[in-house]
């Protein structure tokens, strides 16, 4: 890892990944999930949930604290605000660390890891972070890495407490977007591109309804997910079509629900994975996109080119092709961009402009095209980690009612947006 991005596989022509099949995921832990932190219950704070997820992942792998020599996490917890100016609590909750993030140093101290030689608290969001963790183990920076990704949601309307959104001035690059109402994040540009998609292919927003309904269905089969726990009812087409408009045509049901939770994963070498509790799930490749458009708004064609390139990188590094991917869990934080991944990777032969027809076919987990068997973020809450944990569960054969009936030998998962993301290829076999 020569530099902050030197570990990335973000260029075509890099060949087969040098650690293909030599790194495995052997543990997963999912914490409790709430809509928001109540500000009182410390074991439901960001730090409390991170500890819970980490300890569950270690137990799932059959490891002890002393086996962990790498700690990797991201500060990108989407808290949208700091805990201050509210009063802090007694240690270890006496700073933002533990309340709106849980750094490697905080977890090391609070959980009591003694053998850590690699700590990283500034990893990117979970998509690229999963690739970074695989690369770190493959490169020998550590043998067994604990990786966790908290999502933080404090009280108040999400995003409305972000200081940027109440600023009466638009500094830096925001001067070219904010004065017209553009909100930072994935919503606006991808909605613009969705409108371009509909215009080009003669589609409409209604075409997303079958996807939304099926994601909720899958999410209700995920016991720890937000909807299974807190709002256990199946959404109807009528509800979706009459959903509260956010930015027309986007409705509230197109948006993943911000939640307060944490997931953790354990990566280790294929050699170390041999005698652990779980059957290893091997990593065959990871790939990233770090693109941006030419002008103010990236365009449909730019995003289509970006995902096509991502797919070529994934096929090149893994040695697999579209027909080899059994489980496919791409990001669905806003349903308006998910079709870019489906069509760009051409999963189950879906070509440009065909996604809505595919959604209207049988995408149930028990059917022939179990797209986003995880339920995604739309169906389980905005964890981003469900994409990866479902992939592992499907390959382990432990997805319960979500277990697909088609072959489940390989899985491809990743997030976030078509132009900026990280994807990882899992396999039951190292070759």
């Amino acid at each position, binding site marked *: 890892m020569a530099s902050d991005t030197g570990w990335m596989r973000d260029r075509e022509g890099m060949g087969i990944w040098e650690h293909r099949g030599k790194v495995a995921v052997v543990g997963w832990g999912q914490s409790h999930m709430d809509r928001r932190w109540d500000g009182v219950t410390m074991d439901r704070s960001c730090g409390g949930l991170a500890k819970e997820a980490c300890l569950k992942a270690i137990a799932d792998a059959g490891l002890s604290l002393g086996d962990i020599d790498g700690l990797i996490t991201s500060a990108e917890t989407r808290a949208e605000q700091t805990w201050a100016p509210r009063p802090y609590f007694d240690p270890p909750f006496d700073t933002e660390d533990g309340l709106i993030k849980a750094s490697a140093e905080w977890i090391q101290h609070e959980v009591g890891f003694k053998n850590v030689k690699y700590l990283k608290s500034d990893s990117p969001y979970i998509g690229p972070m999963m690739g970074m963790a695989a690369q770190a183990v493959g490169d020998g920076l550590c043998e067994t890495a604990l990786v966790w990704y908290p999502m933080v949601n404090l009280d108040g309307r999400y995003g409305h407490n972000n200081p940027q959104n109440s600023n*009466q001035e638009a500094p830096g*690059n925001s001067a070219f977007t904010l004065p017209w*109402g553009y909100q930072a994040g994935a919503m606006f540009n991808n909605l613009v591109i969705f409108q371009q998609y509909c215009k080009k292919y003669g589609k409409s927003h209604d075409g997303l309804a079958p996807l939304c309904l099926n994601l909720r269905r899958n999410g209700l089969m995920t016991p720890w997910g937000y909807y299974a726990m807190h709002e256990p009812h199946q959404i109807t087409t009528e509800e979706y079509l009459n959903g509260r408009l956010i930015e027309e045509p986007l409705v509230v049901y197109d948006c993943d629900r911000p939640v307060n939770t944490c997931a953790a994963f354990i990566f280790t070498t294929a050699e170390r994975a041999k005698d652990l509790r779980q059957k290893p799930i091997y990593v065959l490749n990871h790939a990233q996109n770090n693109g941006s458009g030419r002008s103010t708004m990236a365009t449909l064609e730019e995003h289509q080119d970006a995902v096509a390139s991502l797919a070529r990188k994934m096929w090149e590094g893994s040695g697999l092709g579209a027909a080899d991917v059994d489980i496919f869990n791409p990001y669905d934080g806003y349903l308006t961009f998910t079709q870019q991944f489906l069509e760009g990777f051409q999963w189950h032969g879906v070509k440009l402009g065909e996604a809505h027809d595919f959604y209207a076919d049988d995408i149930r987990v028990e059917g022939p095209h179990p797209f986003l068997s995880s339920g995604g973020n739309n169906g389980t809450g905005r964890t981003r980690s469900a994409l990866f944990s479902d992939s592992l569960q499907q390959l382990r054969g432990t997805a319960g009612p979500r277990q697909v009936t088609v072959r489940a030998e390989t899985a491809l998962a990743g997030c976030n947006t078509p132009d900026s993301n990280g994807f990882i290829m899992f396999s039951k076999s190292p070759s």
Partner: protein
Amino acid sequence: MSTIPGLVRPAPVPNDLTKPFWDACNERRLVLQICTACESLQYPPAPRCNQCGMADKLDWREVQGKGHIDVYLVMRDSRIKGFQGAQPINFAVITLDEDPGINFLSNLPGTPPGEVPVGAPVELIFEETSTGQMVHEWQVIK
């Protein structure tokens, strides 16, 4: 102030890179970066050419201010405080006729929310923000 009722636009804050652009707006002119090495127009401004990577070949060129509406959405639940009093409000993407690869944002003053004629020609106008800084806007050519 904006001609759209209830709208309080966040005011651009010029920096060393963008000052020529915003100064031109105050003179009711639209200038874009032009790379004299590869002849590419560039917007928003950047320290180097996005096409060929040259950093010392960027100049400014005034453009005509003619464009077309590509797509739009209607903001109904903005997180941005200055827009909450103006909802529903159009949010459109405008392509520049001189180079359709360049696009701008617009709230389309004068066009009722949701009644946006996609594909229609638009022309450049300017609106004042709270600091007095002018911003470029677009309106449908009647």
